[in-house]
């Protein structure tokens, strides 16, 4: 589901600045629909980032991350042409993967 993800990685000095946007409803399980029925929890709960295949960031998310999640992070030691990868999964097991080349 690469089209659900937008990524950008740019050099800022000697640090790679990564910005990631994932399309996801991030339903908390506490909201009700217009028929007063609870909308079940549906949210991305694990996200791993890699630089050239090596893990740099491992994260666990709860329902408190905003809808269509944004995450920005920085990696020291990267250079233009390196590959930044994202592997995310939601609580129903759907996976979202993305990759971008450092500009």
């Amino acid at each position, binding site marked *: 589901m690469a089209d659900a993800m937008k990524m950008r990685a740019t050099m800022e000095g000697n640090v790679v600045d990564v910005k990631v946007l994932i399309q996801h409803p991030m339903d908390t399980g506490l909201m009700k629909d217009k028929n007063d029925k609870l909308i079940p929890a549906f949210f991305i709960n694990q996200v791993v980032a890699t630089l050239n295949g090596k893990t740099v960031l491992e994260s666990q998310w709860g329902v408190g*991350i905003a809808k269509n999640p944004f995450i920005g992070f920085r990696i020291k030691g990267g250079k233009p042409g390196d590959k930044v990868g994202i592997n995310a999964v939601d609580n129903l097991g759907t996976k979202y993967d993305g990759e971008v080349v450092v500009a």
Partner: protein
Amino acid sequence: MNQLRRAFLKNAGAVGTFAIAIATGLFKPGAAFAAAWNNLAFTAKDPAEAMKNAGYGGATESSDIVIKAPDIAENGAVVPVTATSNIPGTTSMAIFVEKNPAPMIADFEFSNGAEPYISTRIKMAKTSIVRVTVKAGGKNYTSSREVKVTIGGCGG
């Protein structure tokens, strides 16, 4: 009878799609996700308990954790938060919103050159303390700031 048939067809369809997905390599079971999701921490309703369950108990206040967030957030559904730890040897960082129904927002573990810096957007049910905790050199540190929320964003 009709309903049973419908349910059966639906299930058959779902299983079929999943099998194809595995066969084509779309799903690689257990490839990237090493740790199990910390259910105990994320479902805790009390912020102190959430912090403890996430491994950030007994954290010392530190001004070396810098939290950037708006003083007033008009829309609690989307509150930008950026946190940086200037404590040497920081290995992980977590974000909590003390007044949310589920206070723990997320936990981040840094390795192989990742800087102790995270920028994200969170949900806030109401005006609350936003707390960031970090692990560094086997110790826990924390810092916090208040964000006033005009319209809550957790549907609560």
